[in-house]
Each structure stands twice: as C-alpha cells, then as structure tokens.
C-alpha cells in the first residue's frame, strides 16, 4: 500500500484513489484518506491544494452549448441519416459513402493521407478541380459540382470564382442569357466570388435567394431541411426570401443586407430572417496585435477600435462610459470574449441584438 508520505499536491491530484475520494466520495477511498489525514496532520495544506486542483480542473469551458442547440444538432444528424443516407438508390443523385465495409476502410485511409497531403502541400495541388459535368435536360450550359468525398473540396467555377463544398454538397452553376451567374446549392458551401458588377452572382436554395457582387460568404442549406444559414466573411450580400424574389422585389435595398461578420438564418415558419453576429468574427481590417494592449485606456476608445477592426456595430451610451478605463491585454481573444472581458472589467453586461452588440452599463463612478 502506498504511503503518500512525500507526495506533492500535483502527485496527489494525479492519484486515482485521491480523485475518487474528492470527486465521487467513494467509501473505501474516503475511509483511507480521512484516516491518512489523521495520521499526517502536517499534510493538511497539500491535501487542500490538491483538492482545489482536482476540482478546478473540472471547470466547464466558457463556450458551452445550449440544450436547444444540442437537440437541434441531433435532429439534424437524424434528418441527414434518414433523408440522405437511407434513401433508396436512384432517388438521390449521389451518396455520402458507399456502404460495403472494405470500401469504407479504403476511404478512411484516403482521408488520413489526404489530410497529411493537404498539410504538406497546401490545397492547390490536390484540387480535384474537374466538375462532374452532368448535362441537365433543361439547360446545356449547366455544370454540377459534386463533392462525394468525405473532406471539403475546392472547385473553380467557370467565371473563376471558387467554391469550397462540404462533403455531400452539390452545386449547380449556369450563366443565363443576361450573363447572370446562377447557382443552386444543396448543402454547405463557402464562396469566394470574383467581383463583376455587371453580372450578379446568385445562389438559390429552397426558400432563399442570395445576391452578391463580389465577396466571400458561406451558405448552408440541405435538401430536406427548411433551415438556410448565410454568413458573410468579406464584402456584402443581400438575401431575399423566395416570396420576395417571386414578387419581383429584387433590388439590393429590398432584401436583407448582410456585411462582414454578419449572418442570417431563414425562419421558414414565418418566412423572415433572423440576423446575428457570426460566432467567431474575423478581423475585417488588419490591426497589429499590440494595439489590443491597453493601459488605463478609455473604454470608448477600445470600443471604437473594436468596431473598426471587426466591422461590427456596438451600441452604448458614450456619455455614460466616458469615465471608464481599462488595463488589459486582449490581443488573442475572439471578439465576443474581448467584449465579455471588457464588460467584466467595467461591470457591464452585453447582449446581441439584430447583429449589433448592445452594452448595458451604469457607468464607472
């Protein structure tokens, strides 16, 4: 039996029996450790520290997931396996995976070596780049880009835009008589559109039409699901519901305009969009990291910098916050963590409304 006489708090924290006592109150272990403490009263300090270590290490992450999100995700998996994977052959144009086991094994090997290959050579060299050209009955210029592999694939479109397709995604592309670039998406895709003001780029999903001039953005819209999600990385897009589109309301000002770091979900139930700030906003303007080192800096100045850096609007009472200042290093945190840390520092709270961040504060005094 171990005596634990010379154990450091770290060693205690790593001992299975010790952890079982702290975390699960296991009977045998509890009896042992209580007895041990009686015999080693000078070890109280080590035990207390080790105990804190064990408990502290079980801290839940900042960014947890809500119950609602969990059930939405699970529903999506179930929908996917039922509608896509289980559909009888012939009903769908393609499948995510063939089912026989040895093929799966071969594909898995391919995935891991592809991952290694990408890491080593960058994406360009492994681009499959050759669309499976299927001729549609209605339009001979239509090209279908299908990613039937299990990793994302980047394709070059005929207009030299590029699109990165998630596994199982299909994108149809054609140019109509007016020269408009028309695409039809089933799945999850990241677009980098080549700017051409005279030839709008349009993405059609079930219920949503996205119109862009030149920009990068992502759209998720799987057949069999009403959900459509559009998120913008750079530039500007306008989104329309199918209803608005069919009613001829197609000028950019009549649609919902999304700029960098904004996203919108289409709510099929009432045919409207829910607009929000994307989860992990990217800097729209390169700002040196050291600019996010603050020493007694007025908070309003910090907010100005954040607005400029992320292209996101912050709403707050400038007058009220003018006496607040902050000393902090916020260079690495994603946007929302920056906001959260600042709010903690000045005793404020924040809330995201309609793709803007609203700061509630009572001021500093």
């Amino acid at each position, binding site marked *: 039996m171990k005596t634990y006489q010379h154990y450091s708090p*770290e060693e205690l924290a790593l001992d299975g029996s010790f952890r079982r006592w702290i975390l699960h109150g296991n009977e045998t272990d509890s009896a042992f450790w209580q007895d041990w403490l009686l015999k080693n009263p000078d070890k109280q300090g080590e035990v207390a520290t080790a105990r804190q270590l064990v408990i502290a290490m079980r801290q839940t992450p900042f960014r947890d997931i809500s119950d609602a999100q969990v059930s939405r995700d699970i529903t999506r998996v179930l929908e996917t*396996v039922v509608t896509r994977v289980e559909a009888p052959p012939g009903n769908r144009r393609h499948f995510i995976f063939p089912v026989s086991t040895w093929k799966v094994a071969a594909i898995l090997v391919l995935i891991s070596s592809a991952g290694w290959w990408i890491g080593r050579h960058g994406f360009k060299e492994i681009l499959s780049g050759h669309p499976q050209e299927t001729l549609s009955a209605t339009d001979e210029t239509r090209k279908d880009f299908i990613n039937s592999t299990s990793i994302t694939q980047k394709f070059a479109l005929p207009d030299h835009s590029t699109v*990165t397709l998630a596994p199982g995604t299909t994108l149809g592309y054609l140019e109509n008589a007016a020269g408009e670039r028309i695409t039809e998406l089933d799945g999850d895709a990241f677009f980098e559109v080549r700017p051409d003001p005279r030839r709008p780029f349009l993405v059609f999903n079930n219920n949503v039409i996205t119109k862009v001039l030149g920009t990068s953005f992502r759209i998720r819209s799987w057949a069999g699901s009403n959900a459509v999600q559009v998120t913008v990385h750079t530039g500007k897009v306008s989104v329309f519901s199918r209803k608005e589109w069919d009613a001829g309301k197609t000028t950019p000002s009549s649609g919902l305009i999304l700029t960098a770091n904004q996203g919108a979900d289409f709510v099929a139930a009432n045919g409207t969009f829910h607009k929000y700030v994307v989860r992990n906003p990217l800097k729209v303007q390169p700002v040196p990291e050291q600019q996010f080192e603050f020493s007694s800096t007025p908070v309003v100045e910090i907010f100005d910098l954040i607005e400029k850096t992320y292209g996101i609007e912050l709403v707050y009472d400038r007058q009220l916050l003018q006496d607040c200042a902050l000393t902090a290093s916020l260079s690495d945190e994603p946007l929302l963590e920056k906001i959260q840390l600042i709010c903690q520092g000045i005793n404020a709270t924040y809330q995201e409304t309609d793709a803007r961040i609203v700061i509630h504060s009572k001021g500093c005094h």
Partner: protein
Amino acid sequence: MTAAKTEDITLWQKLCDGNVAAFEQIMNGYYRQLFRYGIRILPDEEIVRDCLQDVFIDIWIRRPALQSVNSVNFYLIKAVRNRLLLARRKDRSVAFPDNWTEKAAFISEITIESELILEEEQRLHATKLETLLNSLPPRQKEIIHLKFFEELSSDEIAEIMSLNRQSVYNLLHETLRKLRSLWLVTLSLFTI
C-alpha cells in the same frame, strides 16, 4: 459509472443493429460532453459542431462494422479527436478560417502570464480559472480535460494522444505544476 457503461454497450449494440432510437439516445448522452472536449482542442463552435455531426453520421453509416467497440466513451472521444485534427489541418490551408494557431496559443500564455498579478485571496473565480486553462498550450489543455473531465485512464490517454504512459504522467504533472504556480495570480482588469 460501471452500470452506465454496461448500459451504453447494450445501446451501442442496438445502434449497430440499426435501431434509430438507440442511436438518438447515444447522441443525447454524449453530445454535450463531446462538445466540451472539442471546444478545448479547437475553439470554434461551428467547426466542433460540424465535426460532431459528421462523426455521428459516419457512425451510423459504418454501424455494421462497429460491433466490436467495447468502450463507447473511449471510441467517441477518439473519433471526435481524429475528425477535429483533420478539420484543423484542413482549416489552416483553406476556406473556413478560424483564429487558432499553435503559435497563438503560446503567445496568449505569455501575455496572460505577464498580465497576472498576485491576488490576496486563494479563492478561484471560475472565469479567471477558465482563462488560465485556456491559456495552456493545446496538448496540455487536452490532457487535463481527458484526465479530469472525461476521467480516462492513463492508458486510454496514452492511446488517444499517441504518448507512452510515462509521458502522459509527466505532461500531466508538468501542467498541474504550471497551473499551480499561476494559482494565486489572476487576470487583472481595473476600472478607474
């Protein structure tokens, strides 16, 4: 714990036989826990959620071949980890950008450390502690999570992280020592 594990194996067998309800139950039981693991090694919620969904879809497709799995928890963690590492590698070279880089993890460690000052009380505030944990390099963050959150054995961690048993212990020990040295100190944010 043991009871739960036996129950999981029963559910898993049903899943392999094509029982959707069992599949859903497994997801309900593990989704959040796997998300918490994923977000530790790749701090981008969307990518983590995408990976989790892919892992489960993949499990369903490959279910006839998964009869021999004997620890559901262990199998899922490994599957999620492989998928996330793939996503992370892919992510660096193309599209879906995120803020994660190995380098950034180390920078944050240094800046946070220099911003840390001694606090009188030994009380650990959850947010501050989380900041500390987040400031660890990725492998240290992961190993702490596997040991204390998932309560995996050293052998299991060794297999997941491709380390030998001794290295697992050493890395855990080193990480805990580092955390303890930052123990009393905390991120300073002042109002004036």
